[in-house]
């Protein structure tokens, strides 16, 4: 029902020339088992699903590949460069990911600090330049800094993905002003990536006017991942609708909702 309501007032999300109905994107990491991952992804309604590139485990090869559990014709697989700490590493992982043969979209991450997993902006810009020249559709995971976001857009990134708060932290949207500013100034989609902890965080994030949210841990580490995925689906749609609807102004004084005339004498 909600989806229909959103569809009647909203346009599809377009990233790098491809259209998506869902503004919620989900990761596939950290699930306790593949069955809960599959059920949660289904409940989320997400089309874009992120995956990571790692060595095949030569001893238990058939169980850990995510493609043995996810249907790549049913989802849009978005490879990431998670775990890369330099531009050169990220470029290497990106090229391996593209060779898997699904698409040339990439969620580019270059991490700069092991404790906070905050992005290395210099490395990110360097890798983005190489990969865009190489034909990748780069969706860049970045911090909430406007100037970096503007540079990434100028270079040709198809989406800019500022964080709500650090990866896996569940702290929610810590800098709504920063995210709103990025959204206001950029033309490419702004998709908030990382930090959302629960449904209200997702709703508040979408109310800033951003184009979508990518999340993983908030769903995977919930006690019931499929229920949280459904909650996130509703929260993203609710936040999107509330943004499109246009909220009432904030007032410092009360304004009565019932008529002030016709009261008994």
């Amino acid at each position: 029902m909600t989806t229909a309501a959103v569809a009647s007032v909203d346009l599809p999300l377009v990233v790098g020339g491809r259209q998506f109905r869902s503004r919620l994107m989900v990761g596939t990491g950290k699930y306790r088992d593949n069955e809960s991952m599959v059920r949660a992804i289904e409940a989320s309604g997400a089309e874009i699903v992120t995956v990571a590139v790692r060595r095949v485990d030569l001893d238990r090869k058939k169980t850990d590949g995510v493609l043995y559990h996810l249907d790549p014709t049913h989802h849009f697989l978005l490879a990431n460069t998670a775990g890369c700490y330099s531009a050169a590493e990220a470029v290497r992982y990106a090229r391996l990911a593209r060779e898997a043969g699904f698409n040339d979209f990439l969620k580019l991450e270059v991490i700069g600090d092991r404790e906070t997993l905050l992005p290395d902006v210099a490395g990110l810009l360097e890798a983005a330049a190489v990969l865009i020249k190489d034909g990748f559709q780069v969706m860049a995971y970045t911090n909430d800094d406007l100037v970096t976001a503007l540079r990434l857009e100028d270079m040709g990134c198809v989406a800019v993905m500022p964080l709500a708060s650090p990866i896996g932290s569940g702290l929610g949207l810590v800098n709504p002003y920063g995210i709103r500013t990025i959204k206001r100034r950029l033309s490419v989609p702004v998709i908030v990536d990382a930090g959302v902890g629960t449904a209200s965080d997702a709703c508040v994030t979408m109310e800033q006017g951003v184009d979508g949210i990518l999340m993983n841990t908030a769903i995977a580490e919930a006690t019931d991942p499929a229920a949280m995925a459904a909650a996130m689906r509703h929260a993203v749609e609710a936040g999107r609708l509330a943004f499109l609807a246009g909220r009432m102004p904030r007032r410092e004084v009360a304004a009565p909702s019932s008529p002030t005339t016709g009261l008994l004498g």
Partner: protein
Amino acid sequence: MLRVHVNGESREFNAPASLLDLLRFLDLDPRMVVVEHNREIVRRPELGNTAVSDGDKIELVHFVGGG
């Protein structure tokens, strides 16, 4: 015998061998794996005619769960 480094592990198998032979030897489906041979990506159609040499460094990667 060939001794190569696969995903950081030393492995031995019979020569001569192509990358495709190596995947078969390791019981891996070539459609599910991307192969990097001495830091160069080898496309799937080329796996069968790319020879493995002693001391080669081979990385076999695939998609795993991630955010």
